């Protein structure tokens, strides 16, 4: 009986520890790159801001695929594939791997803004996503 309770607790603790590690690692990298102030608000502003794509002329923002509510399931603008919610508060699988965080920031900043995001921008957005 006891083991039945203990196992999920261990699992919960370890998964939280992993997510904290990846996020901590990202923030320490941002700090090393010279970021001193990290702002959730700035992150939110950037997340919802629309940019005109040079090629297609369409307006793109993070919310195009992820919706403006981080707790909602998103949808890929082109393929229609469903995207799990971004909010760490309801999706504990998010932000558990440094490699994955970097990959998606790189790809999606390029798609949305037409360029890579700075360390400051990434730090702000990450703070907003994990709040």
């Amino acid at each position, binding site marked *: 009986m006891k083991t039945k309770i203990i196992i999920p607790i261990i699992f919960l603790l370890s998964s939280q520890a992993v997510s904290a590690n990846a996020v901590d690692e990202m923030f320490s990298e941002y700090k090393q790159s010279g970021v001193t102030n990290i702002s959730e608000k700035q992150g939110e502003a950037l997340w919802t801001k629309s940019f005109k794509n040079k090629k297609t002329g369409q307006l793109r923002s993070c919310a195009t695929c992820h919706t403006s509510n981080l707790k909602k399931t998103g949808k*890929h603008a*082109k*393929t229609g*594939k469903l995207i799990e919610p971004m909010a760490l508060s309801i999706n504990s699988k998010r932000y558990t791997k440094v490699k994955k965080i970097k990959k998606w920031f*790189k790809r999606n900043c*390029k*798609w949305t803004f037409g360029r890579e995001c700075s360390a400051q921008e990434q730090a702000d957005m990450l703070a907003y996503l994990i709040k």
Partner: protein
Amino acid sequence: MKNITNFIIGTGIIGLILSASLVIADDDDDKYEKKKRGDSIYSQFFSKKLDVAPVKNGLYKEECGSCHFAYQPGLLPSRSWKKMMGDLENHFDENAELDTETQTALTKYLVENSADDANYKRSIKIMNSLRNNSTPLRITEVPYFIRKHDEIPRRLVQDNPELGSFSKCAACHVNAEKGSYEDDDVRIPGYGKWDDD
């Protein structure tokens, strides 16, 4: 003696029935197809049951399948996969960049399991329909694919608000993830079962 004659006649009849059913089973509309490689009714009968080999590579499912249907490598020739994997920054107007290590591993997987040498029904038909000098990047541009879908009216796919394009295999082929694309397993969103007859 009579028993032996009966046996021979009986076996002959069974044989005839078997070969007739084999011909019926080969009902695909591929009469224009060149019989290049193992495309006889016998090889189809003895080849593996599935249409294409299902995806078993976890990295591929994760990296490619998070944005779109994880198309089986057996749906395109290796030359197509190599070309596609060499330009992931412009992946059908999307940025799908990967780190070098992942990119190399996925290219290897795609090439090794490409349609070229796959002993699966649809892979063979795809390869046989391609010209040697063509390197399609879209499965929907493969002649065999086009021929198999040419009877479906626009309103059911391109103009279907629930679909929009032929590239969402699993939206209609309910067993697509398992590598099965049989006609009986087609359910078009907002329309239902597709009857080929």
